């Protein structure tokens, strides 16, 4: 062989290519280059035997769009490929992805260890709603790595956290916390919505399940709700007796043992066959298609999001109206070193900053910026601002607010991909108004 001298290298497709191609083959779909939208509820069976085989998980295929759909399937494979995961299950929102993950892992009487720095909706789910169904959580501050270890109980079934906490930008030490989880024989679940696989692939740092609200940076355009759970495939469900429903014959499926039959994809198979089948938070094919469209530009968008964010950090750090700035790219960020290790391609586009003049100044700023949109979302292509103390986190009582690391002067900024000068000019308008709050606060 002529090329024998050349070093052997796997030629599997790279990230930017996978974001355009993974999960789809045109020759199997009438040659259509773009993924078709299969707006259908149900699928024709070849014969009775074929139908029975599908229902028994004897063969792959689609039965009913609540359980699976070809358009949604492309999205699932594409995200699995980008994350380096074995399998994925898309859901109708990021929250339902978290919910299905918990339901696949836990039942009444179980316990989870959860980072305290989370999106407000997730805090409510773990703190107030899951306990109603017998699932209890212990919250640990994301920087308190040892705290995760101490919080593990006999009935703990996993550790959950957001890689970069919301809204304080505190980074959890994923590799060390993964080791703590694995030493205890439980999986680490990471919500990586703010990073997308472009910035960080949590499986490379020990995570076992990755969750995304695809609504945000992955879809990118603020048009569609979607969520996904992705499986790393490394976790051994049979190493202990903590996960009987993964191992023991499942009464709902003719004695199927998910771990024995599906190994590295067992978690996703169970989440679909049980959680999605019974709880039903399925993603619509239209939304799946919109998200796929968004993922095609993930790399180019994330580059711009991150470079704009770094510009904004510099701008805000030097601004007379700004008391403090928090972003992993800021040199004074307490987790800067960890951020460089976990987020080498960019530090994300979420910035928190304190405005001088406290709450009134914050309100005036928000009410006067023109380009930045004031709304309850993050990760839009457009720049978004919110004042958490009066918005997203307003359902929290005082104690929870403090626990979540919020202050009244904090403004949360999701930097978009507009021209950086236009964003800065808009902020100047806001800051100007904030310096004389009484004149504008009644507008």
């Amino acid at each position, binding site marked *: 062989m002529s090329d024998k001298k050349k070093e052997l290298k796997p030629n599997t497709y790279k990230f930017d290519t996978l974001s355009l191609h993974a999960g789809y083959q045109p020759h199997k779909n009438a040659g259509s280059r773009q993924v078709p939208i299969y707006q259908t509820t149900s699928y024709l069976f070849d014969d009775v035997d074929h139908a029975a085989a599908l229902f028994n998980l004897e063969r792959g295929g689609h039965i009913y*769009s609540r359980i699976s759909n070809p358009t949604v399937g492309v999205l699932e494979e594409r995200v699995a490929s980008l994350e380096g995961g074995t399998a994925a299950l898309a859901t*109708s929102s990021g929250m339902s992805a978290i919910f299905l993950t918990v339901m696949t892992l836990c039942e009444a009487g179980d316990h989870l260890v959860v980072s305290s720095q989370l999106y407000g909706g997730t805090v409510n789910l773990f703190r107030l709603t899951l306990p109603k169904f017998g699932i209890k959580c212990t919250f640990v501050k994301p920087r308190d790595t040892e705290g995760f270890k101490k919080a593990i109980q006999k009935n703990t079934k996993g550790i959950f956290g957001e890689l970069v906490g919301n809204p304080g930008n505190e980074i959890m030490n994923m590799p060390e916390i993964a080791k703590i989880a694995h030493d205890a024989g439980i999986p680490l679940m990471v919500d990586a919505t703010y990073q997308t696989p472009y910035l960080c692939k949590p499986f490379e740092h020990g995570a076992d399940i990755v969750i995304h609200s695809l609504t945000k940076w992955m879809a990118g355009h603020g048009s569609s709700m979607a969520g996904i759970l992705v499986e790393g495939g490394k976790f051994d469900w049979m190493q202990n007796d903590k996960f009987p429903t993964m191992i023991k014959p499942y009464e709902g499926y003719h004695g199927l043992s998910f771990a024995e039959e599906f190994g590295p994809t067992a978690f996703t198979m169970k989440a679909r066959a049980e*959680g999605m089948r019974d709880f039903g938070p399925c993603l619509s094919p239209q939304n799946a298609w919109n998200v796929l469209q968004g993922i095609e530009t993930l790399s180019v968008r994330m580059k711009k999001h991150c470079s704009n964010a770094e510009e904004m950090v510099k701008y805000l750090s030097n601004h007379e109206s700004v008391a403090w700035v928090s972003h992993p790219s800021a040199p004074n960020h307490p987790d800067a070193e960890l951020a460089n290790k976990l987020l080498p391609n960019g530090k994300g586009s979420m910035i928190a900053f304190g405005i001088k003049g406290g709450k009134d100044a914050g309100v005036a700023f928000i009410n006067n910026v023109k380009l930045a949109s004031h709304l309850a979302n993050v990760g839009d292509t457009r720049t978004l601002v919110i004042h958490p103390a009066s918005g997203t986190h307003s359902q929290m009582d005082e104690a929870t607010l403090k626990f979540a690391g919020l202050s009244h002067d904090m403004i949360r900024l999701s930097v978009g991909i507009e021209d950086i000068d236009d964003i800065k000019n808009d902020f100047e308008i806001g800051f100007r108004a904030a310096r004389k709050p009484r004149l504008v606060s009644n507008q």
Partner: protein
Amino acid sequence: MSKNKHPETIALHGGDYRSDPATTAVAVPLYRTTSYQFNDTDHAANLFALKEFGNIYTRIMNPTNDVLEKRVAALEGGLAAVTVGSGQAASTFAIMNVCQSGDNFVSSTDLYGGTVNLFTHTLKKLGIECRYADPSDPSNFEKLIDDRTRCFYAETLPNPYLRVFPIKEVSDIGRKYSIPLIMDNTAAPVICKPLEHGAAVVVHSLTKFIGGHGTVIGGCLVDGGNFDWTKDPKRQPLFNEPDASYGGAQWGVVVPQLTGANVSYAVRARVVLLRDLGAPLAPDNAWGIIQGLETVPLRMKQHCSNAEKAVAFLQKHKNVDRVIYPTLHKGEIGERSKKYMKGGNGALIGIEVKGGVEAGKKFIESLKMFYHVANIGDARSLAIHPATTTHSQLTEEELLAAGVTPGYVRLSIGIEHPDDIIADLDQALGASGKPSLKAVS
């Protein structure tokens, strides 16, 4: 427009949507957006504190979905509705909105197989117990009540027996104990209005007759506004105890105060369950269902009259052992169809093909126009063999308890021309009676 009493009109005009406020467009616009700009910080704070109702985030509400919600509520004669991602999510929410770990509820034994899985296996893992009552005698429900029973659950027109559920009888029992009756009315929109008979909540798989075209998956919960959630605070703790996730709100009290309407059930499902568990309906799907809803009264008429013709034909066919249809039940159970169904008895028919499993299989595989799919309520005629498909995950005991015999075939009669429907059934029944040419398959 909700004061219009006729379903044909409600289906087109129900709710308060007349035209799009921004453009005056008459057709419902598709708001494919995740989020909504706040007017100012006060506006944002009021929305999050529920001091003011408005759009925050599409997981929780969306203007396109809102039109659908109000229209379905009007069609059912309810006060409010919440749409969700699938009928299964609607059933899940229906129970989880009233039950928590340690609670129980009483369900009719006549249920869709997917709901049986949810109730028997999956909710059990969350500490919620389902107790099954045979609906042939309504008093069976009363016998299973204890202090922690939170609701009753049943389907109006359930497979496979197609026995119309005794809505009033069971809801009367429930109301004595402050227990609401939740009715899954998926198979009988327009032709039955469970809220008028005392049900407190209606759930739908919108995927089926309301969506109508087999294109979208969706579900909803309709709050009848006719149930007092505060009458017995111990019975309904989720509506009477303070909810720490909303500054200690007592849903049964605060919602009527805020809205002037008894819609606590719908509001809690939206702001707690959609917020925390997700499962929103995509606006595209809401739009598709709105389109379907416009013709559901017309389609139901055609579904029902076609089904009646098919029943008459099947009853006379030599290769059919038995035909199951709501009006064919004897005695009191048969009478229920007269009491509860108006303008038709639905599109679902069960048949036992002569010759058991093999003949049933042969019949299904010989159908040319009917589709062999796991769905009901498509405009097209559908058929399925439950023992090998929809109910295949149940054990044999559960199968028999669910009334699924080996030769049983479920038909969902479409709105094609009745002669074509009957011709297809006829030729497939003919084929089912012939010996198989394949030796061993």
